């Protein structure tokens, strides 16, 4: 919709340009979806020319302005998955968007994380693979914050006023791990009510059984909830541990109209069992599917 209070448009990625009543504009699919009575200037970051996806030594860098379509394309390549099997969860994560493939041409990875919805699927997979967000702040300050710590509540981030997400960085060890994903929604292809990412995290040079499994819960909690558990736990023990972790975390099970908390809890624990069973068993041949 029109943002009728907006009177100016500028191109900038410099946090020192940011004034009150400004908004950073990436794809714009969230800002233009909700509109605003208070935003008067848009700062367009998409003309900075940041390469959407880059591989550095043992690290994947994803620009905040990388569109969902670009990410989806990259993670569908055979060579991508061969080199970094954990990225097999990215396409299913994209399917968790309520928004369709048409919106993916426009909306961005950074925009989804900055919106900080509990059900934001980019937050889910990035947090699930332990990604770190590079933040540009006023005065040229650059900070790295784990994505799981960047989203702090429903619609709330740890970003200071004027701060900007520049990119996300996923370490090679996570990219090479075994990863999987489960999600629940009240409707087919609807808004996520529980989204659980799991990955193996073997200690260096050790057998997998001695390693750990890292679960990251989103959508059914107000903010990402990462939990590292010994791979030696039974699926039931893992679910119980997750349940304890949520109970002790502020906010507990998330409640909104996209699912009752009791059901969200039930589905989350069910997924924890499934993921534990999957990641401690033989690797499945089938691709992940989300409906």
């Amino acid at each position, binding site marked *: 919709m029109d943002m009728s209070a907006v009177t100016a448009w500028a191109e900038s990625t410099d946090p020192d340009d940011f004034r009150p009543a400004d908004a950073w504009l990436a794809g714009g699919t969230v800002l233009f979806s909700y509109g605003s009575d208070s935003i008067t200037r848009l700062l367009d970051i998409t003309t900075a020319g940041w390469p959407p996806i880059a591989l550095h030594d043992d690290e994947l860098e994803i620009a905040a302005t990388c569109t969902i379509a670009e990410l989806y394309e990259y993670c569908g390549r055979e060579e991508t998955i061969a080199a970094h099997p954990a990225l097999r969860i990215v396409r299913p994560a994209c399917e968790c968007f309520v928004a*369709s493939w048409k919106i993916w041409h426009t909306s961005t990875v950074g925009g989804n994380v900055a919106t900080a919805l509990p059900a934001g699927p980019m937050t889910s997979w990035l947090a699930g693979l332990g990604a770190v967000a590079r933040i540009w702040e006023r005065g040229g300050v650059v900070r790295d914050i784990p994505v799981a710590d960047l989203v702090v509540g429903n619609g709330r981030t740890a970003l200071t006023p004027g701060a900007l997400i520049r990119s996300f960085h996923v370490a090679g060890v996570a990219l090479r791990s075994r990863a999987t994903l489960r999600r629940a929604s009240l409707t087919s292809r609807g808004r996520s009510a529980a989204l659980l990412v799991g990955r193996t995290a073997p200690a260096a040079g050790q057998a997998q059984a001695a390693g750990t499994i890292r679960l990251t819960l989103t959508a059914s909690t107000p903010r990402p909830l990462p939990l590292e558990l010994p791979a030696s736990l039974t699926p039931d023990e893992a679910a119980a541990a997750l349940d304890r972790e949520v109970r002790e975390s502020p906010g507990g099970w998330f409640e909104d109209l996209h699912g009752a908390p009791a059901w969200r809890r039930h589905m989350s624990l069910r997924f924890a069992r499934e993921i534990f069973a999957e990641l401690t068993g033989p690797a499945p041949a089938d691709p992940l599917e989300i409906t």
Partner: protein
Amino acid sequence: MRLDGHEVEELPHPGQCLRTYVREHGATGVKKGCDAGDCGACTVHLNGQAVHSCVIPAMRAVGQEVTTSAGLGSPGQPHPVQQAFAAAQGFQCGFCTSGMVMTAAAMTEEQRADPERSLKGNLCRCTGYCSIRDALEGTVNTTPDGGPDAGGECGRTMSARAPGAEEVVTGRARFTLDLPPGAQQAVAHLKVLRSPYAHARIRSIDTTAALETPGVLTVLTWEDSPDVLFSTGQHEQRTDDPDDTRVLDRVMRFAGQRAAVVVGETVRAAEAGVRALVVDWEVLPDLQDPEAARRPGTPLVHGDKDGGRARIADPASNTVAELHTEVGDVEAALAASAHVHDAVYTSPRTAHVTMETHASVAWFDDDGRLTIRTSSQVPFLTRRTLYHVFGLPKDRIRVVTGRVGGGFGSKQEIFTEDLVALAALRLRRPVQLEHTRGEQFTSTATRHPMRVRVRLGCDASGRLTALHLDALMNTGAYGNHGVGVMFHAVGESTAMYRAPAKRIDIASVYTHQVPSGAFRGYGLSQTVWAVESAMDELARRAGLEPGRMRRLNAIGPDDPLVTTHADPARSSERDVVIGSYGLDQCFDLVDAALARGRRGPEGNAPSGDWLLGEGTAFSALNTIPPNGHRSDARVTVRTDGTVGLKVGTAEFGNGTSTVLRDLVAARLAVPPRAVIVSQSDTDLVEHDTGAYGSTGITVAGRAVEEACRNLLEQAQSIVAARWGVHRSRLEVVDGGLSAWDGPSVTWSDLARFHAARERELSATGTWRGTPRSVAFNVQGFRVAVHPGTGELRILQSVQAADAGTVLNEHQCRGQIQGGVAQALGAALFEEVRLDPGGTVTTTILRNYHIPAMGDVPQTEVYFADTYDPLGPSGAKSMSESPFDPVAPALANAIQDATGVRLRSMPMRRDVLWEALSGEADGRRGCRQA
């Protein structure tokens, strides 16, 4: 920017989205459905990629290539996808069609193979998506004139294609606000400040800053409003609805009510003006719980009204209307019954979600007459009410509609027309008001939330002994339809079963909440949900198969329709007769289809931990609403051989223009394409009550037939006199009249002959909507339920309809498939939610999910073979009624599968799971297992 091949130079506003920019530059095929990226009606190609133009900053498209459906193809040269949508007739109202077409045209083969995923960002509220699937698969459902399909499967008879199909699929059909760019520029825009409080009084409004805002033309408040009470709900009899509403009131009775309006040169200016208004509110105690509405000491919603004058039953107890009747002795009958069932069933508040929001534009024609173009089901009644409110002479208002983007009852109301009239009369210039999607949720009307207690008794053999409905309706802050829905809710729902004792207790109460109004089914979907769920439960209690129990007790062809009186002649059903009866056939058709599905090759049952079940339910609907419903029609043979048909009724996806056209074509033996339909304009005919109550065919069709009959008589008289043959020997044949062993004359010759004598071959017809008949629908479901997740899969959906003669099979099937889909949305997940203060919180389609293609099954549709002598060419109504039996059939199937009975909607996955886990005992939150 290059827009559909033309260079557009003007720079967009910095906050402007691409949708409004391209519309300002003439691309009116690009629609606003949600304005938030959810519905896809605004889909365009940006440099060849399909995008939702409502969430694309227009600045980003500067210098780029933008293609809309009008640029993709034209009626003469449609794109193959457009051709496929026309041939399949993959639309009803057509408002979503441009977006569907643009999305489908951009799909890869892989995307085409998975339409549920690929079209999840395109919402259609009319079709239930079946005909859209057909369009994607290239299935042909229609040909321009109907009849055998030459190029298609052998022997398949095609339905006649809707008039204007080519315009719809190429983005050229003009909906309400699709004015040419020149006309758009002259229009001022009106925006509304809405109450943030459920109950408040405006002490004062400081308009200074708003009036100083650049581009603001005027501010209108309660002080500018005519001090005339009226109802936004519209019926043939204005006195059917309570007078409880002002154009602008000083008292706010729900959060979302109009508090003041600002008119500006642009929407932007008007919105800035609204932000600058300063209101001094006196917040008052409010009423949110309908159960508390009639308790002493409760805040009164219309305590200031004189109940007698305003036609409110009792303002001092928040009661708009109530009804208490008894036939026989229900208590005695229940006491003597072998089996008794007593339970409460609730229906939540749901929204119509027409893809086109309410909108209207007012201007003055060359004679200075106020003209209003609006998205309405009732242009003539709207004109009448505006006369009443503004005290204008009877010939000083004209109301017209363009193509209307969906109705479902929501447009049997005045929600925008009075405001544009007020502002246009003040400013003496064109003024437009277009609701946002949010305003549709917060400030129009919804389905009535209803609590229905049903008590049933039966004897040992399963025969009903007593039926008691005890219901409370929450009509919200204003009583638009709060009376009519109440009476209708207890009509067919009690008439449809034979029981010696029947009792009705129902009240319609005010609350400080968004008003309830007319919604497909008009009260029956809520009471049929209760009665048909209860019948299923009673059958199980009595140890009978529910389907048998239903057949045993459903009214037969010769039964009286007993509701409020033992003698139907004393009830509102007095002019209803069972003109044709196909309920028995419908039961058989559904049972046979479910049996086929059950035995089907794969049975399509999912493997693993699923519970399977089946359920059915039925409903009845009188083919015309009570208290009068009139249509006028005029048929004119033109000298070029075409036939002009003028009708008042509106086309909003119900398909009546197709059927009315074809009735004329059949009566005059001309091809459908020779009939040119003009409609929904108060200048065309004397009167039309409107397109509601499924009357587009049953009433307007009779008027059209009457007009054709009168025209024929006229023509026969002329020919008989000229040729000296007796009238009885003249019959209608191929494009004219012929004496069976003598000469023949074409319509065009006859019209020319007549024109030479300065006369017109033209006749009118009128139908007043009585007597009325009854239509029936039976719905069946086969479902699978996963107890571990609460997931429900509909393995089979079947509906059989007793529609009388089916005049256009594709369209009638579409009405049913669409009705099932809309009802499934309400049954499974739709709910308008309010916060404790009464503010609607579900204001975007992401939070008020309506069915997408992947949410609904492809419903099998079967028709009973009946002919109704009361309907046009034997037809009965079939627009509202397919909705009514869906939810109870689903709940019945769920109980059959799981043993768990759900008595409130929506039956969401989380609710179903909780019920299955035995944790439904009212607990909330997250008790630990």
